[in-house]
């Protein structure tokens, strides 16, 4: 059967024409009023960072008044070669990867569950988003005293029903404890984003998969997950940025310990700032963290993208 030769059968797609640019005066009339707001916003958000940058190249210790002087990159050198800093980096990576991974896995599973209709779905969703709303500092205290406590904690009480005797979570498993708290807090965040992704699927495509003979699992794996990719990427990116900066939980529960076992970058900086009162080093460490966060986020994104490549 020959197809009638329409203009566009087999024709190479034309290049999209350049987006029309408004005449210059029009552009300024449209954008002019916005610039002050944009500039002010940029300035305001940059100010804390700029202050930090400024102090990062100065040597200043609050315990020694009058010790303020310019030292170039000396602080960066000191921080980078500090063993404790390297330890904090590894801890941060461990913490972030674990928490993001676990909360994302749980989040996807729960989103799939919440996507189905069942009795009381709205209430369950309300219950599930609560951890995200609770003040992290209060939550950390709650976990430390009510749940992780070796003698009085709920977790040990539940485990005792299975014959496991008193576990000192905070001291023997500090990292898993923190990861548990973080997962608890961030799963709702992941879940809501993935749920939005699930609900934005085109029903006709899902029906086409049904008619094409796909089982529920095949549909999920081949059709839904690829669609969810952009949502998962977003959630991972945003979540990582926040989780890297975890401070409240560590401050409240382990104080970076035992020893330096759970000292992450923010807590390391805190120690530099409020124990050693070394403004310069603390600031330098802060700047390094920004760079590190960007790297972690990009790395995570690339890994996720790889997971979703469709086989040919």
């Amino acid at each position, binding site marked *: 059967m020959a197809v009638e030769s329409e203009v566009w059968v087999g024709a190479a797609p034309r290049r999209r024409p350049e987006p029309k640019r408004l005449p210059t005066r029009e552009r300024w009339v449209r954008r002019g009023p916005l610039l002050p707001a944009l500039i002010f916003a940029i300035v305001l958000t940059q100010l804390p960072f700029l202050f930090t940058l400024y102090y990062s190249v100065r040597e200043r210790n609050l315990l020694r008044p009058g010790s303020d002087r310019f030292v170039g990159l000396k602080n960066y050198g000191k921080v980078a070669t500090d063993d404790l800093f390297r330890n904090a980096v590894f801890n941060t990576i461990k913490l972030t990867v674990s928490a993001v991974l676990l909360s994302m896995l749980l989040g996807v599973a729960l989103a799939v569950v919440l996507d189905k209709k069942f009795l009381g779905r709205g209430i369950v969703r309300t219950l599930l988003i609560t951890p995200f709303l609770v003040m992290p500092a209060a939550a950390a205290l709650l976990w430390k005293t009510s749940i992780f406590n070796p003698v009085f904690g709920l977790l040990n009480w539940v485990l005792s029903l299975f014959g496991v005797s008193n576990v000192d979570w905070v001291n023997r498993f500090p990292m898993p404890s923190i990861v548990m708290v973080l997962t608890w807090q961030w799963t709702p965040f992941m879940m809501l984003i993935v749920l939005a992704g699930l609900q934005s699927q*085109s029903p006709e495509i899902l029906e086409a998969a*049904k008619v094409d003979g796909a089982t529920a699992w095949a549909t999920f794996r081949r059709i839904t997950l690829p669609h969810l990719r952009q949502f998962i990427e977003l959630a991972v990116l945003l979540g990582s940025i926040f989780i890297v900066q975890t401070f409240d939980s560590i401050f409240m529960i382990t104080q970076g310990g035992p020893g330096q076992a759970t000292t992450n970058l923010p807590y390391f900086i805190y120690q530099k700032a409020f124990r050693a009162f070394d403004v310069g080093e603390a600031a330098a460490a802060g700047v390094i963290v920004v760079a590190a966060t960007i790297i972690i986020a990009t790395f995570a994104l690339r890994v996720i993208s790889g997971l979703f490549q469709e086989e040919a």
Partner: protein
Amino acid sequence: MATVTYDEASRFYPGSDIPAVDRLSIDVADAEFLVLVGPSGSGKSTALRMLAGLEDVDEGRIRIGERDVTSLPPRDRDIAMVFQSYALYPHMTVAQNMGFALEQAKVPKDQRAKRIRDAAKILDIEPFLDRKPKALSGGQRQRVAMGRAIVREPQVFLMDEPLSNLDAKLRVSTRSQIAALQKRLAVTTVYVTHDQVEAMTMGDRVAVLRDGMLQQCATPLELYQRPANAFVAGFIGSPAMNIREFPVVDGKARIGEVDLPLSREEVQALARDGGDRVLLGFRPESVDLVSRGEGFAVEVRLVEELGADAYLHGKIVGAEHAEADVADIVTRVDPARTPGIGSIVYLRVRPGKEHAFSPKTGLRLG
């Protein structure tokens, strides 16, 4: 034998007492091209989805061949469907789109590739096999959607308004291609459209639906020449048939100042019906321009010139007028000699070309 049978099948709108499809009974023969047509809300898409298994069947049964598929999920029915929006998997290439169902059926890779190639050749989409849907035009996507269906070699093709998203010219050319393809592949096809021209040109038989109920299921010619009720009469044919109520006096319908004799069966049916009015229908092309005295008078309101044809819209002189400014008769005239607006012309319905319907039930009389 891949016949399709709707057996008193019904579907109620969820949470409502109103049937979307009401006791539909149709027998589709093997390799037949059946078109389901009707206005929106007529239940045609619902009926198709019931056949696909995407919509529950609340009453009755549905059979494919000898198998009762009423409770089977779509994947067990051996059907393929072309959706109105094509529903192509956006993240897969054309080849992957076409091969997806075959993968699910565990067809071995080389066989898959061959079937995809053959289908792509038929539809002339071979150059696009490695492209993703977003890089294709609407017409190309439509062909991919068809390719996805034919590659499966199913027992039945289901098509849900596949041409609606194409522009008019492409619709016309694709229409004939689909019909030719179906004849070549000889697969039973159930096709849904709201466009009666599509229905008439493509279907072996056409089933007209309205408000969930089957009005008539017949060949296009029969639908055209012997519509079973006033709705079908007015729905099929373009421009639409003139259908109006006229008083009946002495076995004749009074049109304006002229009488149109009705056939004996029509008169008898009217008498049984017990009424003194008849719903009369006649197609624009069944009306002739005659000279004064031979037909009823019509005041010309509008003349549409279409090149090959011209259509005259007018008001019958002497008949009751329900709405003042609406023309109540359309007739086809010779484009070379169109009467002027405001003039009076005389028209006559060719004898035997009238259709009589009961004013009460709308059903055909005689």
